[in-house]
């Protein structure tokens, strides 16, 4: 398979993730859509890595995975904190940073 196919698939997955971030209002689902976009990036990195026959892209992919794990941990911590304080789990109502 030519590397182009993987890149187009990655672009498509990234666009789906972006659509999800724009459409959904639950912070949990928005985090899931961020995961979709990060994974699309990983796929592109690995495709380029295969295309030039160099393994450096794999290290990038692993670092992306670490960053995604950190983002998940902090994001889910925020969601749990919001839930505990009876705040609405809706990004349209949570538009202020105060408090």
């Amino acid at each position: 398979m030519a590397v182009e196919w993987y890149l187009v698939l990655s672009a498509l997955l990234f666009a789906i993730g972006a659509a999800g971030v724009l459409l959904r209002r639950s912070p949990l689902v928005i985090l899931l859509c961020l995961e979709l976009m990060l994974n699309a990036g990983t796929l592109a990195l690995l495709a380029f890595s295969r295309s030039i026959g160099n393994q450096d892209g794999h290290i990038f992919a692993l670092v992306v995975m670490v960053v995604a794990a950190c983002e998940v941990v902090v994001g889910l911590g925020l969601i749990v904190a919001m839930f505990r304080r009876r705040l609405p789990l809706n990004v349209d109502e949570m538009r202020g940073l105060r408090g």
Partner: protein
Amino acid sequence: MEEVAFFAGAIGALGGAIAVIALRNPFYSVLALVVHLVALAGLFLLLHAEFVAAAQVVVYAGAVMVLYVFVAAYVGGVEEPIWEPIAGQRFLAPALAGALFIELSIAILGTGLKAISSEGPTIAAGFGSPAAIGELMLERFLIAFEAASILLLIAAVGAVVLAARRKQEPPIVVEEAGSGR
């Protein structure tokens, strides 16, 4: 044979991704993301990224998704209101995403890079194996490796601080802008 595997993985990944954004219940969205991640791990294997594929299944589809399932079950279903705060968001958002995809596709297919329309060079036997990745990580990319571990540590501490139960939580009410607390 490779084409069949690629299209099977691509259909799984795309179906999972669409299900993530289309399903109303966040719990089902999380499960759809698991399908997406496993299908993507198959594509990683096709790209000879064996270690990354294994890490994807073990770390992502395993550990991270368990965290998601836990929080989705803890928080429960979130009622998403039918009304739209931004007029036409339901049509504008997919249009923007479509424009993004078209733009990326033009950038990819219109590029002058000759190498991307081939399969890539023939690669050595150990390409993407844990031994090769480990060697790279502990020699050339040692600083990145250490930075990643420090980042993980900070994130873990931050999550504990964020989610910790305080003695007296001040009740926060969502207020109109301008009224002080």
